[in-house]
């Protein structure tokens, strides 16, 4: 049942994506609330699906890579819906929907939804650690999306070639402010997630800790560079894209490790 609900949710993200692609190809993109509603409905179905699976498992649904990807997709939608009103909704949604669609479609189509034997009873610290860490990925994903938007806008301005979406983008300085806030939100959540990991009462998976610390240090370095004015906004935006791509790859790797817990 939860997979069917996720299928419906994926359809909503697909619809938002198709609408944007068609409008952009027709060079007639205009922001509407369609994307916002499509993502809202998609989010509702995601939430119900995760709740059903969590209820069936008797724990937070983060027991295999399928659930982890769905949880990341849910986090991206959640952060978008929380911070979306601060930006130009439809356009941010136009970039968010494809990411969520790809994450969910891959999770549903790939043979990764295998039951994972859980040897330990549910631990509130472990679940808090895993869920907060993954929600931080939602914030980093949005920072990555804002980074892509920044790079696109900056490129058009530099090359003096303006397309039909240009005037619907948020101003460059607003995008940079959004990137900074999203980086801080993700960084704080990741820090809390990492710290709670030490209270799980389980043997510490040192390789996982090293990788997680690597991600944490990468984002800390970006924030330091941003606030000390050591690098230009364009590079910060590019680093957001690189950092999230790296973090997602690491998340993948972590979930293939045969260690005590899965996130």
């Amino acid at each position, binding site marked *: 049942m939860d997979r069917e609900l996720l299928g419906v949710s994926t359809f909503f993200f697909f619809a938002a994506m198709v609408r944007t692609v068609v409008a952009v190809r027709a060079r007639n993109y*205009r922001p509407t609330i369609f994307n916002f509603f499509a993502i809202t409905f998609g989010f509702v179905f995601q939430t119900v699906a995760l709740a059903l699976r969590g209820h069936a498992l008797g724990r937070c649904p983060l027991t295999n890579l399928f659930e982890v990807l769905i949880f990341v997709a849910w986090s991206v939608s959640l952060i978008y819906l929380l911070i979306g009103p601060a930006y130009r909704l439809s356009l941010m949604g136009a970039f968010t929907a494809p990411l969520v669609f790809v994450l969910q479609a891959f999770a549903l189509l790939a043979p990764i939804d295998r039951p994972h034997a859980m040897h330990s009873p549910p631990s509130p610290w472990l679940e808090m650690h895993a869920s907060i860490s993954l929600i931080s990925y939602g914030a980093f994903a949005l920072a990555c999306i804002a980074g892509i938007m920044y790079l696109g806008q900056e490129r058009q301005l530099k090359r*003096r070639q303006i397309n039909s979406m*240009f005037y619907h983008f*948020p101003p460059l*300085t607003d995008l940079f402010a959004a990137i900074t806030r999203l980086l801080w939100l993700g960084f704080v959540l990741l820090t809390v997630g990492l710290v709670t990991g030490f209270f799980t009462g389980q043997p510490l998976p040192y390789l996982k800790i090293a990788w997680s610390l690597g991600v944490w240090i990468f984002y800390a370095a970006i924030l330091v560079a941003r606030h000390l*004015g050591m690098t230009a906004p364009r590079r910060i935006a590019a680093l957001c894209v690189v950092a999230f791509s790296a973090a997602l790859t690491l998340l993948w790797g972590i979930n293939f490790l045969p260690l005590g817990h899965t996130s």
Partner: protein
Amino acid sequence: MHFFCVGISHHTADVELRERFAGHAEVDRVLREEVGCSEALLLTTCNRVEIYAAAEESIPTGRIAHCLLTNGMELQEDDVDAFYRYEALRCVQHLFRVASGLDSMVIGETEILGQAKKAYAAAGESGAAGPFLHRLFQRAFRVAKQVRTRTGITRGAVSVGSVAVDLAEQIFGHFETRKVLLLGAGEASERTARALMKRGVRDIRVANRSRERAEALSALISGRAVSIEEWETQCREVDILISSTAATIPIVTPQNLGPLLRDRLDRPLFIIDIAVPRDVAPEVNELEGVFLYDIDSLQSIAQQSLALRREQIAIGEEIIAGHVNDFSDWFAAARERVVGDPSLRVSES
């Protein structure tokens, strides 16, 4: 009943000829009382003079043109050749295109809708607009709104000044805290500065070789005159630099600007170079965080916007075609009620 539009516009006549047919306050009264129109409406803008009218009998174009002559002018032999005439549904379609900005010199301009509303209000007040013109113009306003919201016909700035201001807005968002430096106190700089002030810029500094001219312009735009020697120091602080000096070689180069930007990496600098020859070396655009636009690049963006608007015309025409059909149905129904003959459906002509 005949309904038609007769007029001249930038498509068919130069400004000299259009001036001669600017119409006068009594046109609609003359058309109704002396020419035989049952309803008449005069639409005049700087690019067109048109009469929309309904009459029981067909009225020759020359007679309408004669009524449109500015007081004291005589109708010349070939004047009427410049007039176009649209009857029945072609008239409806033409008005819908005009109101939507599809027929304007600058495609998608919005001023025409206000002018059409004004003309309609005037005809309503004088009693010159009857049931047909009421219906026609109210529908035209609806069509114009739909065309604007459903197409990109009004998208993008199409003049150099508004392109510069729109670009600045896409970089900075709000202007209240932004600082602008005018390097050179020419007229073009002044116009751009005024456009930025309208959008909220409060801090404008003027540097010019002639201090008196700098002070005079500062007084006009509530700015502050600074010494021309200070321009480099000012570049550390300002967000927008508008340059229009009479220098014959570039005065802003990567060599003198680059070092000034090192301690403001997180703040973009938008440079508008409207001088010919250019004041700013093109290589400055390669500097991190600098966006340089000269007069050619601003004009090129204006052209891109116009091209984008032209691409939207077909979508606008589709919307209009749907409304023309609706109007035709309404007219046929109204006619049936009046004369009881359903065969008197309005035809394309």
